[in-house]
């Protein structure tokens, strides 16, 4: 279980997080930006050959069944999981304390668990122009057939490393290093001005 009564965590975006409509929004906003602030962000890694067992553990603990294939993933709203590297998965939960839930089940024979709940910042971009804005930053194909629902991708925008999950037909969750988050957020807002954006 999560430790009770922990205070709220500070967002790295705070001074640059301005709810409301911005940019060219006279004719409506085409993307919505938000920080989703999940309670738990974990990295699970399986030793070669142990991937199936790890996927089974993930299913047992989170109820999320990973589809086959590199970068496969699934997102239930409250929870999400996706592959981002060979044998490696990012698991996300709205609630804190997911690491404790996994603690007994990731045995040394299967692999490792690393808690990154503080170290990664989750930014969501949603709306009809989400693909357009994302394509300004990342040299990967965001079209639905190439990047299916739930799937994960590891990529970078210059120095900023990012893991991206498609959490909806026109919605992406971007996980960036906390220290880069504000810089990335500012760039994301800047790039969204053209289509009009709302911060929620």
């Amino acid at each position, binding site marked *: 279980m999560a430790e009770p009564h922990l205070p709220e965590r500070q967002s790295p975006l705070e001074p640059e997080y301005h709810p409301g409509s911005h940019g060219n929004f006279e004719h409506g906003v085409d993307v919505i930006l938000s920080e989703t602030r999940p309670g738990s962000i974990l990295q699970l890694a399986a030793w070669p050959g142990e991937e199936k067992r790890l996927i089974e553990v993930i299913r047992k603990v989170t109820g999320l069944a990973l589809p086959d294939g*590199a970068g496969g993933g699934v997102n239930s709203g409250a929870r999400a999981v996706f592959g981002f*590297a*060979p044998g490696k998965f990012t698991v996300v939960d709205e609630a804190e304390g997911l690491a404790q839930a996994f603690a007994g089940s990731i045995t040394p024979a299967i692999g490792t668990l690393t808690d990154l709940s503080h170290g990664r910042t989750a930014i969501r971009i949603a709306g009809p122009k989400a693909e357009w804005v994302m394509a300004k930053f990342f040299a990967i194909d965001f079209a639905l057939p190439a990047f299916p629902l739930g799937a994960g991708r590891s990529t970078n925008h210059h120095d900023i490393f990012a893991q991206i999950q498609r959490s909806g037909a026109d919605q992406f969750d971007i996980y960036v290093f906390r220290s880069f988050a504000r810089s990335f957020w500012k760039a994301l807002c800047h790039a969204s001005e053209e289509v009009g954006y709302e911060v929620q």
Partner: protein
Amino acid sequence: MLITCPYCGPRDVIEFTYQGDGNRERPQPASQDLDAWNAYVYDRLNPAGDHNEIWQHSGGCRAHLRVVRNTITHEILSTAFARGGHKSADNRAEGRS
């Protein structure tokens, strides 16, 4: 230039870091054979044609790859995980680009 990562698929070369000549063989850790160590640390093949190289997908999944690249045409002939064992499930392994 595109390199097909066996995990991530074809990606721009900007996501990758060159990690050296893939033909080098590291002596046993306890080896005192200085010639062998010298060859490993300093000697590099420089072929005009197909070349075994190590690349890291540093801006992606971070896996190291064994890449065969033609140094004249830049054609990537094959890519594979340097660390065996992991096979991607969607047959992207050993991908040609």
